[in-house]
């Protein structure tokens, strides 16, 4: 009886996690391993499941790395992500600063936040189709407006830069609200006492923002950066539905290329798998670099110092411990 006095709640945790673990194993881990295997085989064609390992196991990887489309699509993806992320983070920071400022009392703050977040609720497919018809050529709302002010119709979706710009804008417009909400929650989490103390010490709002807010939300900014990067490098739906990666592969992203490899033409699952793994590796490396760059330097220093201290103490113990005996 006495043994039963303490109740371990841990087991409920295990029980509740069973469904996740099982679905994860079947629907995530197994496909990952399957992809890993397929990348080294000759698996091509609809509904084929029998495959053979290649004599040169890295043939598919060589194909991907030497293909022009991979380079183009990687450059497109990275370019479009960076061009959307910088203004997105800037805009989100600006709005965060406004909405969390304790002296600037903005009316209808809640309503604004909802409005800014709204584009994120609409499905990407809907937005892509919407923009496709907005920029229709030679007739469409934007071109009608141009005609009305006496300009000729412009074939926006046949121009590489303007199509990329539209994709970048959509990404920015869809996601700055999300980033803002994340950053606001981070700012709210900062101890208000710090701000009060700063105010008492005479710090102005600019100083407060750069010296307190930004350093305090750095972990969350890292989170935003990494998740946005993963999402950005996997960009698929908007370029696909806006112009199927066109014009002339200008908005062809890596995911779109992988999709084309695996689900059109010869259904080259093996090459698609190899390309997927390469993209995974790229994302992994970039994430690690970001974590390294944005690590808390003070804490890292403190950790190092602690380690050094411990080492020195050990050394001293070794040296003097015996002598002291």
């Amino acid at each position: 009886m006495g043994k039963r006095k303490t109740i371990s709640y841990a087991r409920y945790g295990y029980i509740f996690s069973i469904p996740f673990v099982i679905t994860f194993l079947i629907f995530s881990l197994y496909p990952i391993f399957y992809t890993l295997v397929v990348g080294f085989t000759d698996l091509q064609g609809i509904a084929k499941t029998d495959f053979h390992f290649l004599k040169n196991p890295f043939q598919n990887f060589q194909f991907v790395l030497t293909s022009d489309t991979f380079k183009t699509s990687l450059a497109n993806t990275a370019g479009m992500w960076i061009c959307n992320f910088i203004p997105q983070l800037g805009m989100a920071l600006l709005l965060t600063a406004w909405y969390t400022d304790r002296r600037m009392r903005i009316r209808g703050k809640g309503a604004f936040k909802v409005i800014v977040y709204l584009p994120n609720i609409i499905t990407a497919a809907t937005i892509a189709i919407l923009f496709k018809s907005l920029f229709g050529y030679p007739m469409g709302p934007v071109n009608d407006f141009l005609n009305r002010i006496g300009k000729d119709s412009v074939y926006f979706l046949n121009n590489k830069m303007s199509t990329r710009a539209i994709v970048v804008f959509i990404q920015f417009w869809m996601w700055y609200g999300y980033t803002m909400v994340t950053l606001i929650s981070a700012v709210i989490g900062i101890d208000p006492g710090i701000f009060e103390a700063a105010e008492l010490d005479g710090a102005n709002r600019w100083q407060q923002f750069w010296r307190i807010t930004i350093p305090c939300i750095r972990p969350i900014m890292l989170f935003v950066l990494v998740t946005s990067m993963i999402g950005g490098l996997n960009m698929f739906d908007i370029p696909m539905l806006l112009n199927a990666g066109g014009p002339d592969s200008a908005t062809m992203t890596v995911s779109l290329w992988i999709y084309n490899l695996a689900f059109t033409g010869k259904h080259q699952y093996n090459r698609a798998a190899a390309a997927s793994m390469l993209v995974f590796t790229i994302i992994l490396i970039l994430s690690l670099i970001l974590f390294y760059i944005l690590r808390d330097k003070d804490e890292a220093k403190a950790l190092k110092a602690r380690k050094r201290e411990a080492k020195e103490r050990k050394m001293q113990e070794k040296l003097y411990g015996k002598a002291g005996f």
Partner: protein
Amino acid sequence: MKKIIATALTLGMVVGSLAACTSTPTPTEATKDTEATTESKETTEASQLTDAEEDNILNVMSFTVEVPDMIKAYFKAHPEVSEKYEIKDTVVATDGGGYQTALDAALAAGGADAPDIYCAEDAFVAKYSKGDAAQFAAPYAALGIDVDKEVADAKIANYTVELGTRPDDGALVALAYQATGCAMIYRRDIAKDVFGTDDPAAIAAECGPGMDKFFAAADKCKAKGYAMISSVGDLWNMCKANTEVKAGWVVDDTLNIDPQREAFLDYAKTIIDKGYSNDTGTWSEAWYADMAGSGDKQVFCFLGPAWLINYVMAGNSGSWKETGETDADGNPVKELDTSIGTYGKWAVCDSPLGFFWGGSYVLANKDTDKATLVGDIIRYITLDTSENGLQYAWANGLLSDDGTKDTVASAVVMDKSDGKVDFLAGQNMFDVFGPAGDFATGKLATPYDEDINRLFNDQVTAYSHGEKDRDAAIADFKTNVAEQVGINVG
């Protein structure tokens, strides 16, 4: 306690991973089965599929409601069938490759929910009748259809038979109910203005045969301020599969650019440079506007089959006025007013080069558990020439409320049908569209056509709009075909 949970969890994981592993061999077995059946089919030509009905649900997969509606009409006409079976139709639009992705997954997964009957459009039917996915199709002969005799008796358009024949065993696995031989659909008022006549024979002689005459006519239209065609894309269908094209995109697993298809680059460039078109895109708002004559310039002609007239142009002719009332579904009721728009101002004549465009093909799943029923329905849709058959109703507009007529695959049905339509000011369109099917060939089709066509047209657009030179366009096209479709480019 902890140990028990840990053991249970580990067991769960092991079972989970095992379940995941076992899912792999099952399809392999299925493929083996297919191999076995194809082998047996080769030995005993067309072994009959047996009815091993597991349920009473007939699964149908399509990209429009057209074929499901036909099957519903069949059920209505056959009470003994509708008592016993239910139709479960899955309709996925072709936009963004959605339909094929869904269909491929459903066919590969198999089981009770796999489609018994499925449809494919002309643009991608070769993938399901000739490519890897042809393994899922049941030969018509295995559904109790006497293929050679029934096809000959119905005088089915030859190119549809060519498209629907599986090269591995020569079995017919797909047929269309439409014949989509194309014609030149032109505006009578513009024809009178430019050529002084609207007589189909005279206009056909002005604009063809051949591309030189077509461009000469375009020049005359331009001189009077008209555009010959709406979009460069209108011309693509004609250049893609006309009688002059010798071979399709893929020959011996290597890309083949037929001179006729390559010439389309130059045609497109000429059209854009000289302003023979309104530079729209097919299926865009601007394209529809040109049908109503409300585009940039008035457009002289469209090149297309009968369905383009009835299903696309008639509705977009700008002659429909809202009455202000709404129907039961809340959609505005429209009535025809020929004082506006272009309805009734059109005529058809032979196109400069014979070609075909579009058509829906009907296929049966080799694993269907209702072979007899599926065979009967397919016969009703594709081979029945009687007045109770689908094609007679389709040709004479008996299925739809607005009496839309269309050309059908069976010449026997065409002969007893009447193709007079008000949209063409009472011209009998079957006189032109019927013979047009003879020019069509299904021999050029390859399973990868849809993707290669898309990649080629990307380059055509870039080249014709001056984004790059001709050599670069062809080089980029080859790179894209090699690196996206997976075809050798030699």
